[in-house]
């Protein structure tokens, strides 16, 4: 049983940058937003790596990456992501700053998925991040599934194990560091991934070169989506920095762990 796996992955500003919310004429945004470098949303990135892993294990499967983001920023981010795993890109040109309206965003993504040529809905697995490193509405992926008529949905997924008949077992995170085990008879389904279990694949120029043949045309024909920015905010403040630095060398791991535990207890 092969799958058609569509991964919904947005961009988030590089978390190392200073992210200062501001109200602009079009709604909320970030200070110097156009200039800030972006990275692929790390939650969605886990979903992408898991999708590629699953596709590799199921011959005949295929992965699409659907991304709603400013085209220029997406191009920069793809120079990294495209070297990780093989996929086809479906680009939708729109904002990606953590202030987009989740419903409109889901509609744009669902429309883009529905328009993918050759996509077999009976083989469809929609992957994405359970959370997001930006504002984490936590609802977008569910609404994408609903709009596509997919009612088998799993959130906080850490593992998907597919059987020979195409049925699969899903581990979903629940409280207390435990997992809920679910069984699904097969595609179509939506999986909102937590971190999964795969490490980030190393960059491979060969994979990048292969992807690049389709990515750049996809970027060029990305259609613009009208996705409004959601509401307004009253105030935002960067958490005050607490710095208590010591430079310590040759400390044993046990001693470091003990110190961290004591710090947490304070």
């Amino acid at each position, binding site marked *: 049983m092969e799958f058609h796996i569509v991964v919904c992955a947005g961009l988030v500003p*590089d978390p*190392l*940058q*200073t992210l200062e919310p501001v109200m602009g004429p079009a709604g909320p945004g970030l*200070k*110097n937003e*156009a*200039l*800030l*470098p972006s990275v692929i949303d790390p939650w969605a990135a886990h979903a992408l790596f898991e999708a590629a892993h699953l596709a590799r294990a199921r011959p005949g499967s295929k992965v699409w990456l659907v991304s709603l983001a400013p085209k*220029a920023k997406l191009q*920069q981010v793809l*120079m*990294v992501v*495209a*070297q990780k795993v093989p996929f086809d890109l479906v680009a939708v040109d729109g904002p990606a700053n953590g202030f987009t309206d989740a419903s409109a965003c889901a509609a744009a993504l669902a429309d883009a998925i529905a328009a993918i040529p050759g996509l077999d809905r009976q083989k469809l697995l929609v992957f994405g991040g359970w959370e997001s490193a930006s504002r984490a509405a936590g609802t977008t992926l569910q609404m994408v599934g609903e709009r596509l008529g997919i009612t088998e949905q799993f959130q906080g997924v850490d593992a998907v194990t597919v059987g020979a008949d195409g049925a699969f077992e899903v581990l979903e995170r629940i409280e207390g560091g435990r997992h809920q085990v679910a069984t699904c008879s097969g595609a179509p389904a939506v999986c909102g991934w937590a971190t999964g279990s795969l490490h980030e694949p*190393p*960059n*491979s*120029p*060969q994979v*990048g*070169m292969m992807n*690049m043949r389709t990515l*750049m045309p996809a970027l060029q024909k990305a259609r613009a989506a009208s996705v409004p920015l959601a509401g307004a905010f009253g105030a935002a403040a960067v958490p005050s920095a607490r*710095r208590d630095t010591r*430079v310590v060398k040759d400390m044993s791991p046990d001693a470091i762990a003990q110190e961290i535990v004591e710090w947490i207890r304070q």
Partner: protein
Amino acid sequence: MPGTPETDSLRTLPGDDIRQVMWRFTDKFTHQMLVQSSRGVARGLVARLVAGGVRETHEWTPEKASLLQAFDEAGITALYLDPDMGGFIDGPKNFAMSLVAFELSWVDAGAATCSMAGHLGLAPIHEKGTPEQRAFYLARTCPPQPGEDRQTWRGAFCLTEPIPYVGVETGLLNGKVSIKEWPEGGEPLLQVEKRGRFITNMGFANFVTAAVDSADDRIKGSCMVILEETDPGLFDRGPATRKLVHQLSSTRDPVFSLTVPASRIIGGYTVKDGVIIPAFDHSGVIEAVFRRTRVTVGLMTSAKLLSAIEPVLRYQRTRFRGGESVTPGTARYELGLQQREDALHRLIDIWATGEASASLGFATARLFDDLDPIERRKDAILAERGIRGDRAAMKALAAVGQQAIPSIKAGTPIDDELARFVVLDAVASVLCPAVKLWNTGQGATMMREAVSLMGGYGITEDCPGFLGYKWTDAQLEATYEGPEAVQRRQLSVTMTNEVFLAQFEQWIREMRGIGARKPGTGACTLASAMTLWLWTLHHLQKATDADGAKLYKSSRQGVTFPLADALCWLLAARFQILDVLELEARAAESAEFHETAHGFTRFFTDLCHVQSAHAAGEVGRITAELVYGYNRHPSWDDVCAAGCCTAQEVDDLDTLIPGYAATARSYADVIEADGSHAPKAGPCVRLPGLQTFQSLRSRMDGCITGTRLAKDRAAEALTKVMIPEAPDYPA
């Protein structure tokens, strides 16, 4: 562009989108990917290794060896190879290699050297090897593909000889090759005796490309040979070199005494009258190799300068935070050391130097990418025109160059491929040593400035951005692949090439035109400095010193070398301006990109102005020293020759021109009746024929007007630019 405030300047540090435009690789996606891959290695593994203290040993440790696998996985090892050999970039790779070296050096230049040295070891085979040698070694240096189970071969390049102070001349090779056996009708076996010094990658190289001279009448001249670690004889890697810097590359002093088949002579050989004649002597191979790789070394230092900006900014801003009396909202808390103009101005100088050196380096790397395919076709074109033999080729190329000079000066396109080769070759022959010399030399000086801006913190292992390491590493970059004197020597020859000088004249007009359109760039200042330099060169080529000895000749390095130094400043500033103009042009094409690029354009324009003023200042200082300095200062002992007048003559003239005596002593040297004169070394200098120089210099000094205003604006921008909350690699 409507809607953009004219005062808008730097808002964040420049990102990839800006650099791709400035350094011209917006349409090169393989290069963009390579940048990201290299950056991942640099700011990941390399940074962790440095922070973890691996620089504390000279030895090649398993931790350091992990770099090689990371290079393999990121495509850095295979970068040098063509796609049919397992690489992924078709065509010339000078620019791509420069980008990789830049990214790795952003964190640690030793790591960059480690990757580059592998390419360097392979380069003689790649450039001049026989098809069989290329197929054999290139395939083995390609990392294994999925499904393959083999070891990646690593190469080292062995030219440098032991040892100073033991009578070895650097222009000669003491590595020797002789014939050990020559079976009847079979392939000769060679005995190679070679000792190397400061050989990079020697701790793990599987093969070495070594330069050797003939010690046998049956071998003609010198050549390069390939030595493998399993060859019969002695393959002694030697002791680790006790270098102070670049500890992420393996450097040793090896000893080889090996027997190898003659087929290991790079480029092959022919046999004539019982004598082996190598297809290429060692200098021909080395020239082809170093000519390109020196550019990459120059860019290593550029990366350090630009990488220093963010750590210094963060240090300046946060310098006083944490003190009880320094509360948020106060200038001392928000700006820290940036309240002081000097801290800002010095950082601007570092940034401007970094920009100029990167612009010069990347432009040169791109130029070599343009030159490579034409250079490879050159011999075929000459053959098509019936020109054979080295001497005939040189004559023909010189004639082509002469014919091209009017077009070069006019700035009109050159259609003839051979003429294009001559022009590109002439320019490349200047730019390559200029990059190596100026980027590393001036770069090292400015890295010291960067370290000093961090106070005592700068010279500790804990300094963010490893600035102390970067400073000391820069000194080795100034030495790698030919120390500074070698570069100055080459420049002093190539910069007098008529074809280059024709191009230089056209560049002066180009800068003047840019100055007219974009006065804030400093292009006009630069044009004036370029004019002064060119006049000085022409003057010195004809002038003699006070003793009548010719000034511009190869042995007179006190003349030729400083003039070469001055040229480098001009070239770097020119390419810096061109990169900013490119950014501005691309920004004008798209409203979206204009929003991103506008502030950078303004800020970088101010940096250009600052750097042009620095360049002009250096040119003024150097040319004045050279033009005046070789004349003997007028003496009071020979007042007539010096054009002095006596008090009596002044009084006589006063009778004809009333009031003359009252002012004469303020503008003329007067010998009083008692023989006394003004207290100074001698009469003022009045050298005939130097009025043009004085006029050009005076004009150039005037052109510096406004540059400090540009510096103030740029400094102001530094107080407002948004920087990341934390560095993106550990320290």
